[in-house]
């Protein structure tokens, strides 16, 4: 779905979202009031400029509209792969965006994500994955790496990875796999504006992804392991 078509469905009451260089920023009307909207389009690879522009927007929202919910629309093929970005410290720029979003959350801004295109690795980590709730359209493409590339790098047979993918959601790309692992909260198939209003109406409840991964039997260990660690007082080591 194009971002324009998506926003038409998400915000029937209208929006003022600008698209500049595949970066989205602006606001939209919802039944729960005005929200801030930010994100990426056309599978944009997140480089230093992208991260800085999005962080700039988050800082502006926090300054000018305290408490306004922020919806992140995600379509990124990942981080930009270039020597120049590395030279400038791209990880620091992405971390800056992440910290700005956390600061917004700490100051009471609700953070929601909707993956409507691709959501890959570092690009996804730097904003979409920071939300209180991460939702996705059914045809969203969420991944770290496709199976042929994974087979090449891990030197494992592709047929073996394909076979295992039917048994475990941890290997193959796909929004259903991320749903099962708890990385995606729910899939929005239709009634997008209603889904958004419902999500805006819920309270943030901390990072629920490990519990969801366990309930959906996609990540059976993460919740238990982290709980075991937090249960260890200084004397129990």
């Amino acid at each position: 779905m194009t971002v324009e078509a998506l926003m038409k469905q998400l915000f029937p009451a209208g929006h003022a979202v600008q698209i500049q260089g595949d970066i989205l920023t602006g606001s939209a009307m919802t039944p729960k009031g005005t929200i801030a909207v930010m994100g990426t389009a056309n599978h944009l690879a997140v480089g230093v400029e992208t991260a800085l522009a999005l962080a700039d927007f988050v800082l502006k929202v926090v300054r000018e509209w305290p408490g306004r919910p922020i919806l992140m629309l995600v379509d990124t093929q990942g981080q930009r792969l270039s020597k120049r970005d590395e030279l400038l410290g791209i990880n620091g720029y992405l971390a800056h965006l992440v910290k700005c979003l956390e600061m917004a959350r700490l100051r009471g801004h609700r953070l929601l994500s909707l993956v409507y295109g691709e959501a890959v690795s570092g690009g996804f980590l730097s904003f979409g994955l920071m939300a209180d709730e991460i939702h996705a359209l059914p045809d969203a493409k969420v991944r770290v790496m496709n199976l042929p590339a994974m087979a090449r790098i891990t030197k494992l047979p592709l047929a073996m990875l394909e076979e295992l993918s039917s048994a475990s959601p941890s290997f193959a790309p796909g929004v259903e796999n991320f749903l099962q692992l708890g990385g995606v909260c729910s899939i929005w198939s239709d009634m997008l504006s209603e889904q958004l209003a419902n999500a805006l109406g819920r309270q943030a409840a901390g990072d629920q992804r490990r519990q969801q991964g366990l309930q959906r039997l996609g990540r059976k260990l993460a919740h238990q392991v982290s709980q075991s660690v937090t249960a260890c007082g200084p004397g129990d080591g």
Partner: protein
Amino acid sequence: MSDLSGRHRGHSYYEANARGRITHLLDAGSFREILGPTERLTSPHLELLGLPCAFDDGIVVGHGRIDGRQVLIASQEGGFMGGAVGEVHGAKLTGLLELAVQERPAAVLLLLESGGVRLHEANAGLIAISEIIRALLAARAAGIPVIGLIGGVYGCFGGMGIVARCCDSLIINEEGRLGLSGPDVIETTMGVEEFDAADRALVWRTVGGKHRLLLGEVQRLVEDDIAAFRSAALETLEQPIQDLSLEALEAEHQALSARLTDYGSCQDATEIWSQLGLHDPLQLPLLDIQSFLKATCKIGREGA
């Protein structure tokens, strides 16, 4: 075997493994491991793929003391799958950061050595890194300083490069490398003309400890000696906590914007060093740490 700066001398951080680093960084005998190897919490995904597991899934976490002060510590084992983060590995680190909020140690020390997401369990690894980031920032928001140490063979890349820059403060040696996409990943994807990963001098001046210090991406550059990392960690503990306030992030925003304006068109680290006003930038990679710090002391160190 003692000196004024710490108890140990002459243990290379670069060459030590995850457990050796903890042993020599903390007060002798103070380390208490959580979910140690006898618990056998190995990766179920590697097992499925027929690959050897590690009893600690490549990360050691626990309690300890540094100069008498209670800390929580995590140490990634680069030798096992390049320190990459899988489901169990990530959950141990997330749990440790959540424990910090309950226990309020003097600091959390993260000995980072990782290529990022473990591709053999890629989806679980990516989510795990996002959970680490949230838990780390929650610990910081609760007022617990999180200090990152980087200096192993595998560097600190991928999602863990983002995790590193979410810390309050970073300590690195010259051998340490910090970035997002590793040079070999860029070369494989974009071609050797974009980044020649075999050109070691190019790699180190682009992502190595010296450049990271000059850029303000890390706060302390130390000798490759665990005792030097220990001293730097103790110094860092004396610093005021970096908060996550709007003002602090606006200041960071300005610094990062200025960096992009000033150096955004530079093709090589030496051009940046030259613009910083440093004499003889081509010589900087050759200097030992003390001479390097002396030659560059006029550069304001961000957040140091």
